[in-house]
């Protein structure tokens, strides 16, 4: 990355040496995992550029927008309603991190048996290497799993602007009432932060922006039904990851452009993998940048990933928000309805998730499911065994993988994934 960003990173008080080291690892990983793929759609060039500038140009844009009076809100979860943020001309960025960093510092604050995702968010903060968290005017934590909600008690002393949102754990009338109260409270907090009163027109606009982004992703997802596959799972995952960082209008346009290209490929029966390559659905925990380990293992072992049943994937993007309401109240109800359908494993019971996995297997013609659980992620690991049983009862082969962000288990994972693919052939 160019020298002109140095002063920008300094102004955000990043640790330049550590940050350089992180960018080097990220660049090398991207080279080995992404750029090494063959026959990628040309439109992925946009995402290559986004990734090469993820701590550069994108941060400059955010800082320019801040200078022009817009606020930046950081979030760790798909439950934070982006519609409300956009309605106040603010910007939502994802803060979830997908790499181990500053592990020793993290373990001074968090128990060792905390999942990689939480540890990583702390590591990026403590190691002073995340320009997003440093640019944020407000950081939203949310009471999902125990690990996250307890860790926010500790994070609040590390950042000046943590806002904690409570979330229901049961899909009941009381649960919905809680979500409603929390979204109303969040709307007020955003209004206070931005100094903008959110009216119906603004809320409608916010819904439109976010819905457009989702529609583009749906279009991309539905093109993944094709055989031969016109795009790799790694590339589609990247689009789902960039969903959380990019300027929404530009993201929407870029994804649609790739879709135009993929439609032509499909017409010509062109693919990134041969026809009848075993097709897998990934289901489970989210994969934040640059956590590409498992998809990389899968797609270098002779299979293609055709869908992600994950927060960074369809769990996060499923369902549009109804924009037919005309008052703030009506539109807020629509937003609450939309988010209340998210089938996160913190809910008990959570039968919708299993239905969605089966639905996705059928829709994308997957030959099997790999359940991805982050080590120490209680909600998804707890669900993994019943999910495996239920899928196998429907004759859907399933492989359960528990892993973390480290690379030491790559050999064993490769053996398991390869054996699973051999089994499907």
């Amino acid at each position, binding site marked *: 990355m160019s020298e002109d960003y140095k002063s920008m990173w300094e102004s955000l008080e990043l640790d330049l040496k550590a940050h350089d080291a992180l960018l080097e690892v990220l660049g090398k990983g991207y080279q080995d995992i992404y750029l090494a793929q063959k026959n990628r759609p040309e439109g992925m060039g946009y995402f290559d550029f986004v990734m090469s500038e993820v701590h550069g140009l994108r941060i400059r844009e955010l800082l320019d927008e801040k200078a022009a009076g817009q606020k930046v809100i950081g979030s760790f979860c798909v439950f934070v309603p982006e519609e409300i943020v956009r309605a106040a001309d603010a910007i939502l960025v994802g803060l979830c991190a997908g790499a181990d960093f500053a592990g020793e510092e993290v373990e001074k604050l968090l128990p060792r048996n905390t999942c990689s995702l939480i540890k990583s968010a702390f590591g990026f903060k403590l190691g002073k290497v995340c320009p997003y968290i440093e640019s944020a005017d407000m950081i939203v934590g949310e009471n999902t799993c125990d690990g996250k909600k307890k860790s926010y008690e500790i994070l609040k002393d590390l950042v000046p602007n943590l806002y904690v949102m409570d979330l229901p754990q049961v899909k009941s009338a009381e649960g919905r009432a809680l979500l409603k109260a929390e979204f109303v409270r969040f709307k007020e907090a955003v209004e206070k932060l931005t100094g903008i009163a959110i009216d119906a027109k603004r809320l409608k606009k916010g819904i439109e922006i976010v819905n457009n982004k989702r529609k583009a992703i749906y279009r991309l997802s539905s093109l993944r039904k094709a055989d031969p596959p016109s795009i790799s799972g790694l590339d589609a995952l990247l689009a789902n990851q960039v969903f959380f960082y990019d300027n929404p209008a530009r993201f929407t346009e870029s994804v649609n452009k790739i879709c135009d290209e993929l439609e032509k490929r499909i017409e010509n029966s062109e693919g990134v993998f041969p026809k009848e390559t075993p097709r897998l659905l990934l289901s489970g925990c989210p994969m934040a940048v640059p956590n590409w380990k498992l998809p990389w293992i899968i797609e270098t072992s002779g299979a293609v990933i055709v869908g992600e049943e994950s927060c960074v994937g369809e769990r996060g993007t499923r369902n549009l928000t109804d924009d037919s309401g005309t008052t703030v109240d009506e539109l807020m109800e629509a937003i609450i309805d939309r988010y209340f359908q998210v089938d996160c494993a913190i809910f008990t019971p959570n039968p919708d998730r299993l239905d969605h996995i089966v639905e996705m297997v059928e829709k994308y013609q997957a030959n099997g499911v790999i359940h991805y659980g982050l080590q120490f992620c209680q909600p998804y690991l707890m669900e993994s065994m019943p999910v495996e049983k239920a899928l196998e009862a429907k004759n859907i082969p399933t492989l359960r993988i528990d892993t973390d962000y480290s690379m*030491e288990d790559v050999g064993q994972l490769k*053996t*398991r994934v390869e054996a699973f693919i051999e089994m499907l052939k």
Partner: protein
Amino acid sequence: MRCAGIDIGSRTIELVVLRNGEIIENRQADSGFDPLTRAKKLLMGVGHDHIMATGYGRHLFELSFDAPTVTEIKAYGIGARMLFPNVRTILDIGGQDSKAIALNEKGKIIKFEMNDRCAAGTGKFLEIMAHALGFGLDEFGTEALMATKDLRINSMCTVFAESEVTSLVAKGENRREIALGLHRSVVRRAVGMLKRVSFDGNIFFAGGVAKNFCICNLLEEALEQKIIVPRDPQMVGAIGAACLAGKIR
């Protein structure tokens, strides 16, 4: 046609050559620190038309020899069926991995379980524990069988189990009884894995740990059935790879 299979494991390398389904050659060497050179040495003077690699070092071999590969899971499935055509369940405990594999009546793998990254319940675990108790690996099983009662070892983690063993030794406990307890803990884990693949019918036990009589005895006791141990349990993966080598081209 001579078909060779080479199984490059974490501890040992096995080479098998089949001609018309008959084993005409089998060789073994330690993997050492440079398994590829060891593999090359093992192949010296061995004639074959096709070769396939399996085991932990298969991709290393693939790069140097441009040979096809198969996972040890499938190789063990095929190898076991060649030796015992009706086998439906395979337990393989090797140097750093343990696996339970379920086959359908045609021999196709329908489910498998494998240990994750740690060495719990593998040959490495037994090796470290034998060392901690001052036994040679070869005598570890027979010594354990001489115990009249066993001490329960609770830690499955190699590191924790080692300190548990050290503290038992310090308490003056009998070393054979500790050894029996350690063997039993490996068996408990293996039985758990077998149950997760819901085993059916005969159980075929392979991998280096199948050479340990104590483990075999305890397994039969825990499963309440006889298990099948081939004459050369470490060769099964190489046999499977050799069978496949002939079919792939």
